């Protein structure tokens, strides 16, 4: 296993633009591509967040009075699609994966740098196309799930653009997945064993396996759906003898693993952040690895729990209940391990640590409602209600987005050589945490008591609770202000961080901050114990 891309790399370097312009170029540097993913994803997060605000404004009153009903359906469809395919998936996989994985395996770049750049540059055009479809004939309005026959009968152009855009984003995701698997397996520096890799590598290996196994199924399904729309075929069109439930099976075969594609990398990231700020080794490395792989395997066989009230026979309902509930076991192991990592540490209470702990609390809550939802009789009442909306926002926002922010506070000094302001960071955490819980906790009650999801109007008895939820959404919108101020101020005038401000032991910190194009001036260091905190020899070397 040799690192064979060195000559190619230096060759390219002379052709690449320097300075900020390189972020707008077809750069092959994994660090530049990582930042491109992150900033692009964040811009789409702002768009998706504005759409969410529009939804919460509409729902502040029980009547459909803020926007036309079909526009409301377009807004909720775009909100879901943008947040999943343009913010969370590209950022937790593409942004942090590209930036960190080559450091972690001791390589100077990803295995396929050109494929990597292609994967990124598919995202901005497909995202813009998706947003712009609103101006054609109205965007897609069948929800991010695009269930036929609704997706066949709503205006065609919006739905077709939606399909095209999701296909391109899926392609980008597959390119990225192949690249991560190849990099982790083949580009490891000589002497570095698999079981010595930082946990994020394992999380990305598992995630990439899910991407490569399940995304093609979504692509095939959407192509069939587009045939139904354009060419009047009858795969899913009941008028022509098609079967609408088959679509749901195919769709969820990707889209349930998609949840793990969104949370497994976050599990990896938090496993990097907690040991550094708690000054303790990651608790239970081996069980963490096995639980990631357990989640990958189980994650592929639980999809029909999204269809308990749909056309599924009783035996199938039962099988998917048990399989789904069992995912709680490997997931639970990880959470116990993280708390055990904190236990007995010397914890620095900073923004990165607070967001990570917020993640643990929110995700445990979302996980508990998840186990409840896995039970068929429980799900039958709350399926397709605000209870489900609350549950998955606890997972993807309270879970993954909290970790994205935690990671930004943790790796900002790595990328820029400057520290983020801690006071603004803690303010950002407090507003986000309160706003998030105020927005989504009351929605559990709404769902249990009779408010279905994806509605523009509702029973007036739910108005007060909906207004509390909208107030929480307002706080969440406000919380981005201290964050943005912090980032802009710190990039320009932030305190110099030095190379390794956290005294971390993982390989990305064992070079200058920001790192050189080749990642290390000399040879990549061999890090056999990325979590060796508290060990005597290492302490002496660090001179704290």
């Amino acid at each position, binding site marked *: 296993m040799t690192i064979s891309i060195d000559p190619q790399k230096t060759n390219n370097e002379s052709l690449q633009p320097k300075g900020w312009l390189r972020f707008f170029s077809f750069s092959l540097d994994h660090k530049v591509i990582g930042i491109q993913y992150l900033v692009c994803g964040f811009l789409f997060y702002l768009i998706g967040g504005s759409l969410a605000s529009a939804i919460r404004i509409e729902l502040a009153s029980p009547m459909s009075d803020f926007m036309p*009903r*079909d526009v409301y*359906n377009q807004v909720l469809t775009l909100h879901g699609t943008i947040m999943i395919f343009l913010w969370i998936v590209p950022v937790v996989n593409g942004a942090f994966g590209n930036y960190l994985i080559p450091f972690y395996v001791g390589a100077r770049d990803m295995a396929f740098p050109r494929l990597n750049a292609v994967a990124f540059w598919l995202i901005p055009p497909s995202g813009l196309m998706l947003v712009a479809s609103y101006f054609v004939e109205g965007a897609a*309005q069948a929800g991010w799930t695009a269930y036929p*026959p609704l997706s066949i009968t709503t205006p065609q152009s919006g739905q077709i653009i939606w399909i095209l855009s999701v296909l391109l984003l899926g392609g980008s995701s597959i390119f990225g997945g192949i690249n991560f698997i190849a990099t982790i397996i083949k580009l490891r520096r000589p002497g570095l064993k698999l079981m010595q890799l930082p946990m994020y590598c394992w999380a990305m290996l598992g995630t990439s396996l899910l991407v490569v196994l399940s995304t093609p199924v979504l692509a095939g399904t959407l192509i069939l759906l587009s045939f139904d729309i354009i060419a009047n075929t009858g795969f899913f069109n*009941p008028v022509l003898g*098609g079967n*609408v*439930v088959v679509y749901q099976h195919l769709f969820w075969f990707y889209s349930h693993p998609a949840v793990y594609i969104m949370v497994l990398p976050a599990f990896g990231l938090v496993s990097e952040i907690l040991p550094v700020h708690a*000054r303790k*080794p990651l*608790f*239970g*490395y*081996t069980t963490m690895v096995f639980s990631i792989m357990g989640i990958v395997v189980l994650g592929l066989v639980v999809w029909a729990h999204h269809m308990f*009230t*749909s*056309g*599924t026979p*009783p035996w199938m*309902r039962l099988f998917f209940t*048990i399989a789904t509930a069992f995912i*709680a076991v490997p997931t*639970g*192991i990880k959470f116990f*391990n993280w*708390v055990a990592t*904190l*236990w*007995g*540490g*010397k*914890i620095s*209470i900073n923004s990165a*640590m607070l967001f990570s*702990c917020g993640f643990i*609390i929110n995700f*445990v809550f979302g996980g*508990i409602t998840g*186990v*409840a939802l896995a*039970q*068929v*009789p*429980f799900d*039958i009442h709350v*399926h*397709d*209600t605000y209870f489900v909306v609350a549950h998955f926002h606890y997972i993807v926002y309270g879970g993954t987005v909290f970790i994205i922010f935690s990671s930004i506070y943790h790796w900002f000094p790595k990328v820029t050589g400057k520290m983020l302001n801690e006071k603004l960071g803690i303010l950002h955490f407090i507003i986000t945490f309160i706003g998030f819980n105020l927005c989504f906790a009351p929605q559990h*009650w709404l769902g*249990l*008591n*009779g408010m*279905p999801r*994806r*509605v523009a*109007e509702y*029973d007036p008895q739910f108005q007060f609770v909906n207004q509390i939820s909208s107030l929480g959404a307002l706080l969440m919108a406000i919380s981005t202000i201290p964050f943005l101020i912090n980032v802009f101020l710190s990039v320009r005038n932030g305190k110099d961080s030095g190379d390794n401000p956290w005294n971390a032991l993982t390989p990305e910190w064992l070079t200058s901050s920001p790192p050189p194009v080749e990642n290390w001036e000399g040879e990549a260091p061999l890090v056999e114990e990325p979590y060796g*905190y*508290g060990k005597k020899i290492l302490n002496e070397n660090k001179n704290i």
Partner: protein
Amino acid sequence: MLNKNFYLILIISLVFAISFWIGFNVNLLPAEASINAPIYDELFKILFIIGLIIFIGMTIAVIYSLFKFRKRNDQIGDGIALEGNLSLEIVWTIIPSIIVLLIGLYSYNIYDRMGGMKELNHNHEMMSSNTEKIWAGISQTSDNEIAINNLSIEVSAMQFAFLFNYPKGNFISGELHVPVDQKVSMKMESKDVIHAFWVPEFRIKQDIIPGQPTILNFTPTKVGKYPIICAELCGPYHGGMRASIIVEEESDYNEWFNKNKKPEVNL
């Protein structure tokens, strides 16, 4: 002197006590108006209590760690180099596995009591439902206990309304009237896109699918008027797609039924 274990046991018992108290005293659910509802609420209560114990326990553990093990200003160096503890890890693999398995078995039992595992069959005299493939639903009646006084209703859903056909009376209603304490058997089919039939007070929901009939059986237990809500996104007016189910005494129901009944037309 009280030792550490005493405080640990004290905190654990407090967490359990608080969780049980909340579980038994905080009601998050709407009124119970069908045979299914109390069964559902029993499951809900159990899941709620277990969930509270885990959530409160984990939250306390995280906040306590942050407070107790925070780095003081005068401290340098790292925490203890503890990389794992096999027996502890085995314990927190096996205990959740057992809890999850027990919950799964218990919810199977609940589902069976709701009629979910019974063979799907629609009790309907005028058509032979045996030849027709029923895809899904909840059935409280098994083959041999199909009662003659079962009320059969055919539901058709369309953008954006429910229509209820009473074959015995040969009429169609926009409002669902049913007598209290009697089994109702509904066969549902959609005319256009997917809809769903949901009555929160009954704790039942079933998608209504075009091209594939689904079954929903239930027994209302409380007189009153309850909302029927479409729970599957079905188009711009999805939020307005609602109807009412009116559960009434048998005499009131018969009066309503006879008023609407139309003579059979033989062609």
